[in-house]
């Protein structure tokens, strides 16, 4: 992004970039901070257990990001860019970060 259009939060963004792991090097049962593009999200029917499950991909690979107890989170949709941080565990056999601390990037940012 050109410097001309940097917002006030630009310094914060720079802080966020610190400690980011490529998804391919994430290991099970370690804390990780990853950023990627939401490639798919899973819409649960109202009748089921409320879960929002999405798949996050960066250039190196992908993992699941699961929000238990939520049905939807505004802004999390296919194509969104998301930074997620939390303990890496598993969900239905897939490597996943459950209930991460997350931050949404507006389109085109990062």
């Amino acid at each position, binding site marked *: 992004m050109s410097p001309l259009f940097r917002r006030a939060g630009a310094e914060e963004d720079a802080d966020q970039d610190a400690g980011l792991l490529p998804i391919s090097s994430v290991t099970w049962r370690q804390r990780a901070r990853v950023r990627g593009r939401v490639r*798919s999200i*899973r819409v*649960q029917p109202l009748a089921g257990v409320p879960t929002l*499950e999405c798949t996050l991909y960066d250039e190196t690979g992908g993992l699941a990001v699961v929000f238990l107890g939520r049905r939807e989170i505004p802004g999390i949709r296919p194509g969104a860019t998301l930074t997620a941080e939390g303990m890496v565990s598993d969900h239905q056999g897939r490597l996943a970060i459950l209930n991460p601390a997350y931050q949404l990037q507006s389109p085109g940012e990062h």
Partner: protein
Amino acid sequence: MDKYALRVLTRGAAPQPLPPVVESDVPEGRLFRLKSALLGRPLHSDQLVHERLGKPTALAVFASDNLSSSAYATEEILRVLLPYVGVAAFTLVMPITIAMLVVLAFLILSYRQTIKAYPFASGAYNVTTANFGPPVPQVAGAALLIDYVLTVAVSTAAGTAALTSAFSALRSFRIEIAIGFVLLIAYGNLRGLKESGRIFAVPTYFFMLNMVLLLVVGLVRLAMGDLPTEALSGEGLVEIGEKGSGLLYGASLFVVLHAFASGGAAVTGVEAISDGVPAFRKPEWKNARTTLVVMGASLGVMFLGLSFLASRTHVGVFEEGVPTVLSQIGDIVYGESPLGHVLYYALQAGTMLILVLAANTSFADFPRLASFQAGDSFLPKQLTKRGHRLVFSNGIIALAGAAIIVLLLTSARVEALIPLYAVGVFLSFTLSQSAMAKHHLREREPGWQRGLAINGFGAFLSGLVCLIVAVTKFLDGAWIVLLLLPTAVLLLLRLNRQYSQEEAELEHEAEVAATAPILRRHVVLVLIDRLDRSTARAIQYARTLTPDELRAVHIAADELKAEALAEEWRRLALARLSLELVDCPDRRITRCTVNLVDSLLADGQTEVSVLIPRRIYRRAWHRLLHDRTADAIAEALAPLPHANVTIIPYHLGGGRDPVAPAAARPGAAEVPSIGGNGRGDGPRSSS
């Protein structure tokens, strides 16, 4: 009580017989209804009758092509000679006719051998196939196919000329009339009138009767000395050259050979009988041989007689081909009396009918030969299929189309078509006689030396004529055929290579593939575009597959639509399935689907079925209102092994009542499956 009865009793009910077979009440397609309206009801395969023909009928059916050539052969000889040698042409026409008949005689002798040796398939293609390797039969076959097309064109053009000679008002509609004839014959053949003998006997014998009458009256008037001689100049007549001196009256050998080549058109059609031997009454080959000789004799009498009358009456040849020489001779011989007029019109009608019939012979032969070649994988397989009325419909349509193109290109002028003609026929004669010679050398049956001599000489003679035709008519148009022929042969061989490659791949270790272990996992993806009945049907169907993983997937090319769909899904939740929204940043739904499926296939242990609900529209224009994404996706997934596409149809409006009859008929096939791609050859190499 025996064990079986006990089992039945303990099960409750005894087994019942199956219900009777009933025709499905699914409405027929539009094409079928159109075909039924045009062609009549479809024929059952059992109705494929092999009508056996007696000799007189067989002569009428098979000889019309050959006999009809007498209607234009003399004219074509004169057309070549007149500009060079003038009046001497009328002297030269007789020797040339006789030479042509000598060739015919030898061909008939040769074909008598062929018919005896191969009584069930004596056509050039079959005989060469039996004796030579791949390229030779294809040359013979291609030559014959080209000539069948030309036969249709020449015959209809000449038939039109016979009509327009009698009714000059029709002359400006020549092309339309000729094409009309082609369409009429094609239509008749599509309906399946085929070789139904008796209809054919009438025009053939009517023509022969008229010709004999013409010759008798002509000869009698000549003997009495009151046969008039035509003036040799007039508007539209071919320019008359100066009479020279010497043996050939100043004509070069080339011109004489050229005229001879033009007369070669008379010999075409000899092969028709040999193609149709199985249609004769028993003993087939004997009857066929007799008929062949009778045909040759009849043609000889008519051709010779007509050439003789032409040489005495000095009829001119018109540039435009009308009125024809035959028509002029008829006019002169029958004179001006009312009876003469009646006889003249009868002659013209007979000529027209037999010429049209001659075209019909090709319509029987071309589709049959094409089906042989297609059966041997040298032509598209569609040509082997019998259509609505048990005839080779595709072959008939192909022939009609080709003949119409030729007629348009030549403006339906006989004299423009003749130079193209006969090269192919003589080439196929040569090849088939050579094949016979080889047959004799190999089999050495009793009397093989005589057979070898006949067929060898036949091959030599027809080869010579072929060469003469090719050389003398090269510039007039034979070059087109000489160019077309190798192209066609190469095309046939190329087609064959394609077919054998496909076959080799499909057959390669087919048994091993059939017993290969099946993949461990089966993932079913249902592509969801919207929440409606068609989607619901697809999901219900997917559940009957009991896959390891069932996923409802929406490719989110349009964010707003995806969100609306997600909202609706949360509320309705079809089958309590979760819906996956997949990011598709470039909005190329097809490509996104391919990427998704490919990632599922990556472990090499997964069989993926993609279910696409598709609406089936009742009318063609309804379809225009929607895009064809489903088909595009199915096609795009085709290259991925172990990716399978199933279209789940949903009939809009036109479908049958979805509940009652469907429930009464379990197991009705309703899922046309496209692109099953289980090649079963282990993990994929590409990704």
